[in-house]
């Protein structure tokens, strides 16, 4: 029995508790207090980050629905909108990786369904400790299995993502899941409840004890040694039911039976109902006795905050209630009338005929006191003195070593466990720069990717924020698609400690600058704070998801070399640097800041070149530098290459250094001039060599390094499977 007052046990600060009493004008009941503790937790309220997020660009000609709803929506022509968002499920995944990752997928999919959209793609961004650690191998394996289990069974193709391994994530793994959906613009659903007397209908799984206290207990606090005890808080996913739920909600929307729709995620019924009430300017009265339960003995507070999965809340006209129930039955789902829309602006709940909750919904959703984030700037970092970095004299050995680094190596072990194809719309599968999926019923396609430059953000947060955005944008542009909108998941440590708050603010500033420069607004996003442990904080990890539009699906470009005799060009700008490179192997130095104007010019070049069918392939130079990108284009195409590149400061830096915006392009010799003609605004587009043979050959300053393609492939493809066998 704890000595703490209830509010502290629930994670509310004394000041916040005082504010609750002030707002309510009385002592809250226990269920009411639990509701406040969850709604005012960081995870639900964004009380630390909301003020900082104001700087992100959220408007544009294509934006149909910006941040603030379940997901953002962007016009893609033909009266259709693409809807998408990325979300984190970090803390649950550290405690139970299979279910944590699985329910992370479930949650983001429901956000897309809640807008009335049909999901057409999934992506995931994962970060763990090094694979030399048994615990990290376990978390990695189980998280991938969880995503596979859920995504495959629910039938949404997984078309991309990223995986990184670093000590800073050993105790604080990151699991971010992104979902993209499609919806006719005139069928986009809102979560705003309206219509006095309209029914509140709960559709989907029964309510149990899953995730009780999950949002406040897990997501708003650092993980300590006793988190094995937090295990009961983790939700268990049921993708089969979610598939039925998805099909049912889409069917209901198609025949106009839904006034509003909301998914139940963190803080369950409380969050969903209060959002619906607040956004609609109405009240909701809930009869908790009518909520179908999976277990006996749940208290009213538990029913209100349970995070049992696969549930949606709908607002339905009374005369259409039976039609909704009939439709749900056809999909073998429960649909239960649990309450109604009122005009009080309050969230009321009855239990055994007695009122247990009466809170003006705006208190829960809008009146959370915001917290200022301390801005303690870290001392500026300096570029690394190249002389202090030992020079690799055996470039072949260094090349093979970096190809075998799990961060760089093939992620085939991951994405072969995912259904990449369901829906017969996947034009470019995982393994390239971005996934490409047809927009159903049209000749168009979207390209989508998730990326982050966490080392850069640690060392130079503003430039790192820019770099994270531009990495994603460049990857999308490499497929020929024009970036049109973005989503973000900001994974950071405790903002009240050290320089984390400053890095959060600075990196958001950088992201805003880059997004504005490339005319790509943010339409949705998520923040996950307190990602740290006694071992220390994670790197500031702003994961950016960018969606691009291909007007002609048949014009998408891949990353693989194709034909003997094709010319290879190095397109873009910037000098390679060892600073914070994978080759250097540590987060140190000062990577070159991106050039926003040149990045925009590079995107324009790639999109135009693809539209006119000039390129055989385009592949972004990123982790591992030029030599890795070259090898990847060769391996994916099953054909070698012979190139010559400038020495720069030193041969190993030229091979493996990172930085700038550089793309390796291959094309038929007849198209070289046209591509070079597109390289304006200070971009280079030099021919550096030719595709062919079964070796990869790089000449620098008269010295030639050559490796059999099969050697590079063996190391690159074998790295992660070998690391897992340990």
């Amino acid at each position, binding site marked *: 029995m704890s000595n703490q007052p209830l509010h502290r046990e629930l994670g509310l600060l004394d000041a916040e508790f005082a504010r609750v009493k002030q707002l309510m004008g009385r002592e809250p009941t226990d269920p009411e207090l639990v509701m406040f503790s969850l709604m005012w937790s960081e995870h639900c309220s964004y009380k630390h980050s909301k003020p900082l997020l104001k700087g992100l660009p959220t408007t544009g000609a294509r934006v149909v629905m910006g941040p603030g709803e379940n997901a953002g929506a962007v016009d893609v022509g033909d009266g259709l909108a693409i809807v998408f968002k990325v979300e984190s499920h970090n803390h649950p995944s550290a405690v139970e990786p299979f279910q944590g990752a699985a329910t992370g997928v479930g949650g983001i999919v429901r956000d897309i369904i809640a807008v009335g959209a049909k999901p057409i793609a999934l992506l995931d961004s994962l970060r763990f400790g090094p694979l030399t650690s048994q615990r990290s191998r376990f978390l990695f394996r189980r998280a991938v299995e969880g995503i596979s289990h859920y995504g495959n069974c629910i039938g949404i193709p997984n078309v991309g993502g990223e995986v990184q391994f670093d000590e800073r994530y050993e105790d604080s793994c990151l699991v971010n899941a992104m979902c993209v959906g499609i919806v006719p613009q005139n069928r986009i659903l809102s979560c705003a409840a309206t219509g006095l007397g309209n029914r509140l209908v709960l559709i989907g799984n029964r309510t149990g004890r899953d995730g009780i206290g999950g949002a406040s207990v897990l997501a708003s606090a650092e993980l300590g040694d006793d988190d094995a005890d937090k295990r009961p808080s983790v939700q268990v996913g049921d*993708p089969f039911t979610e598939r039925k739920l998805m099909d049912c909600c889409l069917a209901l929307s198609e025949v106009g039976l839904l006034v509003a729709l909301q998914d139940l995620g963190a803080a369950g019924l409380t969050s969903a109902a209060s959002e619906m009430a607040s956004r609609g300017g109405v009240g909701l009265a809930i009869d908790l006795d009518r909520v179908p339960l999976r277990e006996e003995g749940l208290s009213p507070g538990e029913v209100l905050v349970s995070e049992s999965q696969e549930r949606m809340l709908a607002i339905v006209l009374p005369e259409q209630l039976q039609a909704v129930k009939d439709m749900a039955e056809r999909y073998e789902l429960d649909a239960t009338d649990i309450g109604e829309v009122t005009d009080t602006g309050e969230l009321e709940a009855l239990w055994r005929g007695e009122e247990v909750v009466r809170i003006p919904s705006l208190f829960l959703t809008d009146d959370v006191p915001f917290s200022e984030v301390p801005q303690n700037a870290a001392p500026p970092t300096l570029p690394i003195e190249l002389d202090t970095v030992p020079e690799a004299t055996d470039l072949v050995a260094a090349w093979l070593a970096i190809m075998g680094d799990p961060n760089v190596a093939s992620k085939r072990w991951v*994405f072969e*466990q995912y*259904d*990449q*194809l369901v829906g017969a719309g*996947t*034009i470019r599968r995982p393994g390239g720069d971005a996934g490409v999926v047809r927009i159903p019923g049209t000749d168009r396609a979207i390209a989508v990717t998730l990326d982050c430059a966490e080392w850069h953000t640690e060392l130079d947060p503003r430039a790192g924020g820019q770099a994270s955005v531009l990495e994603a944008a460049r990857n999308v542009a490499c497929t020929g698609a024009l970036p049109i909108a973005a989503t973000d998941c900001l994974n950071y440590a405790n903002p009240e400690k050290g320089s984390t708050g400053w890095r959060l603010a600075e990196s958001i500033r950088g992201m805003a600058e880059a997004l504005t420069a490339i005319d790509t607004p943010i339409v949705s996003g998520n923040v996950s704070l307190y990602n740290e442990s006694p071992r220390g904080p994670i790197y500031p990890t702003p994961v950016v998801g960018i969606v691009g539009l291909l007007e002609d699906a048949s014009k998408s470009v891949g990353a693989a070399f194709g034909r003997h005799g094709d010319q290879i060009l190095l397109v873009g700008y910037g000098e390679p640097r060892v600073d914070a490179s994978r080759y250097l192997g540590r987060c140190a130095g000062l990577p070159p800041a991106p050039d926003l104007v040149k990045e925009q010019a590079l995107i324009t070049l790639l999109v135009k070149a693809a539209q006119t069918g000039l390129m055989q392939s385009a592949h972004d130079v990123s982790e591992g530098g030029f030599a890795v990108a070259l090898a990847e284009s060769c391996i994916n195409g099953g054909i070698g290459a012979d190139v010559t590149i400038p020495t720069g400061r030193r041969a190993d830096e030229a091979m493996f250094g990172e930085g700038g915006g550089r793309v390796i392009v291959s094309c038929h010799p007849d198209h070289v001039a046209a591509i070079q003609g597109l390289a304006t605004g200070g971009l280079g587009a030099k021919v550096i060599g030719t595709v062919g043979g079964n070796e990869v050959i790089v000449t620098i300053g008269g010295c030639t390094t050559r490796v059999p393609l099969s050697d590079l492939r063996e190391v690159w493809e074998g790295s992660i499977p070998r690391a897992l066998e340990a």
Partner: protein
Amino acid sequence: MSATRVAVLRFPGTLDHESAATAVRAVGGDPVFTHHTDTALPEGTQAVVIPGGFSYGDHLRPGALASRTPIMVAVKAHAAEGGKVLGICNGFQILCESGMLPGVLRPNASLAFICRQADLEVADADTPWTGGRRTGEVLSVPFKHHDGAWFGDPSDTRVVLRYTGENPNGSIDKIAGISNLAGNVMGLMPHPEEACDPLLGSVDGRALFAALLA
């Protein structure tokens, strides 16, 4: 002559019905979605496709619960009269569980879900499904499954397609697709409906759908 009517079954959890219907339409057929609780196939049905997915969430055993639904009685009757039935992936599992094809699909040897493009070789060009192709001809078709290792007695069946190269899942004799001895019922683990569009990388799957309508 009107288009061949093809019933495309849908169970709770079926995922690949839309793409199967698209493939049927592409070869000139008339696909009709058929609910698992129906007791009869749509009027005028000449062929049946059981698409891929996770019917009933793969609960108990993949395909076990779907094979015991009302619609399957009608499908069995249709097959008994010589009507064509094509089961893809989960559809193959359902056909084995219902006894319309011999054997059973077991978990992949690696115990992991695998999604990969496969080179399938035509094992027997004389079946109703491979007429027009040569024995040994290679078809590029993707597969994506967790339980694709066929286990049974090959002499109870006609082997139609095999995996080439390394056995991806532990299937006996690298069997990828079989038909019953009469030849009218076929099941395969790879997804021909994902190989009907040049944009998706291969059109080698069209032949099977054309054979369904023949």
